[in-house]
C-alpha cells in the first residue's frame, strides 16, 4: 500500500477538528490549551507533509514547522502562566466562569 499525501492530511484534519471541538466544549482551561496544541500540531503536520510530498526539493515547510513548534511552546508557557494567575484569583479554571465582562 502506497502511503499518499492524503493519508497524512486526513489525520491532520481530524487532529485539527478535534482541537477545535475540544476548544469549544471543554470546561477546563488546561484542556482547552491542549486542544490548541492539537490544532497547532495539525498545522505542523500539514506543512511537513506538503513539503515532503509536493515540494521535496526545498525546506521551507520544515523550517516553518520548526518555528511554529517554538511559537506554540511560547504560547503554552504564557497561557499557563496566565491561567495560574486566574486560578489564584478565582480558585478555579473553569472557562465558563470567566464571563464577568460581557455585552
Amino acid at each position: 500500500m502506497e502511503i499518499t499525501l492524503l493519508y497524512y492530511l486526513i489525520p491532520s484534519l481530524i487532529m485539527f477538528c478535534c482541537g477545535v471541538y475540544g476548544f469549544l466544549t471543554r470546561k477546563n482551561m488546561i484542556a482547552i490549551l491542549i486542544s490548541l496544541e492539537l490544532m497547532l500540531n495539525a498545522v505542523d503536520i500539514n506543512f511537513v507533509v506538503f513539503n515532503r510530498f509536493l515540494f521535496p526539493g526545498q525546506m521551507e515547510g520544515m523550517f516553518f514547522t520548526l518555528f511554529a513548534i517554538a511559537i506554540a511552546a511560547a504560547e503554552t508557557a504564557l497561557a499557563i502562566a496566565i491561567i495560574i494567575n486566574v486560578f489564584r484569583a478565582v480558585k478555579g479554571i473553569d472557562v465558563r466562569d470567566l464571563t464577568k465582562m460581557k455585552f
Partner: protein
Amino acid sequence: MDYSQFLAMKQEIGLLVVFLLVFLYDTFMPRRSQGGLSVFTIILFAVFTVWGFMPCMGSCADSAFAGMYVTSPVMMAIKGILNVGVLIVLIQANKWANSEIQIMRRGEFYELLLVTLFGMYLMISARHFLLFVIGLEAASLPLAAMVAFDKNHYESHEAAVKYILTAVFSSAIFMMGLSFVYGLTGSLYFSTIASVVALEETSAMLIVALAFVVAGVGFKLSLVPFHLWTADVYQGAPTSVTSYLSVISKGAAAFAFLVILTQVFGAVYSDIWEWMLYALVILTITVGNLFALRQTNMKRFLAFSSISQAGYIMLGVVACNAMGMASLMYYILVYVFSNLAAFGVIQAIENKTGKVGMADYNGLHKTNPWLSFTMMLAMFSLAGIPPFAGFFSKFFIFTGAIAQGSIAIYVLVLIALINTIVSLFYYLLVVKAMYINPEQPVVGAFRSACSERIGMWICVAGIIGLGIVSCFYDHLLELSGTFGLF
C-alpha cells in the same frame, strides 16, 4: 554573508538598541537611579522616533535575508507613524507606570511593549510568511502578558485569558490557511505565491486558505466576526495597554493586511477578496456601531468604536490602489492621535479617581474644562467633524475607496457614510455627558500629571493640525505612489 543587508533594517536595529538599553538600565542600574527609568525610556524612544524619520545615509539596501525582509519609504513612514503613537502611549502611561503598584514592574512593561513593536515592524516589512508569523506572534504574545499586567484586578486576568486563548486559536487558523497556501504554491515568499496565484485557476482550497488568512489578520484588526475578544480585552486591560492595543497594534495589522492582500493575493482581488472585504467592512462598521451605541464603560465604548473605525480603515484596503493606501496610512495617523487623546483623558481620570463609566463624565466641563475639551476634540475627530483631522481622514478614505470606481463601491461607501451618523450619535453621547447632562459633576477638579498633559497636548495639536496642514497627506500619497504594489 553580506552584513550590509542589516543596514536595511535600520529601524529594527534601532529599536533593538533601545530595547537593550532599557533592559540594561532596568536590570543593572542601582536602585537609587531606578526612578529615571521612565524618563530614560521616553527620551530614548523620542530620540529613536526622530532618528527613524531621518533619511537613510548613503545607499541603503532595501531588502535583507534573501528578500524575506524588505523596506521602502512607505514602510519607514508607517513605522514612523507607529513610533509616534508609541511615544505618546509611553508618555501617557508614565503616571500609571510610576504608580505605587506598577513601579516594581514598569521595566517589564516597557520591554514587552518594545518587543511587540518589534514584532509589528516585522509584520510590516515581511515578504515571507515565516517572518510574518514570527512578527505576528511577537506582536501578540507579549501583549497577553501586558494585558494581564494589572495583577490586582480580576478583569485584567480574565481579559488576558480571553486574549491569549483566542489569539492562539486565531493563529492556528491563520497557519492552517498558510499551510494550504503552501500546499498550493510550494513557497512562502510573497512574490512567488503571487506569481503562482496569478497563473493558476482559482481553486476552492485557495479561497478557504484566503478566508483563513483574512480571519487570522482580521483577528488582530478586530474585524467582525473575529472581533469578539476586543471589547472584553480592552475593558480588562490596563488603560495604557488598551490604548496601545487599540491604535498601534491595529495600525500595524491594517498595513500588514493591505500588504498581504495586495502583494500576495493581488491577482484574485476582484475574484475573491474584494467581496469578502465588502462583507467584512459592512459587518464591522455596522456591528461595531450597534454595540457601541449602548456602552456605559468608556473603555469598552472605545473598543467598539475602534472596531467600527477598523471597518473604515478597511475601506482603504478595499480600494486596492495607491490612494487607498495613502488614505489608510493617513487614517491610521489621524486615528493614533484622536484615539490616544481620548485614552489620555480616560487615563488621567482613571488614575485620579479610578472611574471609567460614561456617567462619571457627567458635568465634567465644570470641574475639568481642559480635559473635557480634549475629549470633545477627540470625539469630534473620531466622528469625522471638520476642521479636525478625523474629517480629512474620513473624506480621503472614502475618496480613495471610490477611486476604485465600481457602483458597488459607491453602495459600500454609502453604507459606511450612513453608519457615520450612528457613530456620531454615540460620540456625541460622550460630549453630551460632559457638557449637557445636568447632573452634578462626579469627578472633582484636579490637575492632571505633567506627562499626561504633554501627551494630551501632542494629541490635540495633531487633531487640529494634521488635517489643515496638508503636507502629511500629500507626502503619504506621494510615497504610496512609489510603493508599486498595484
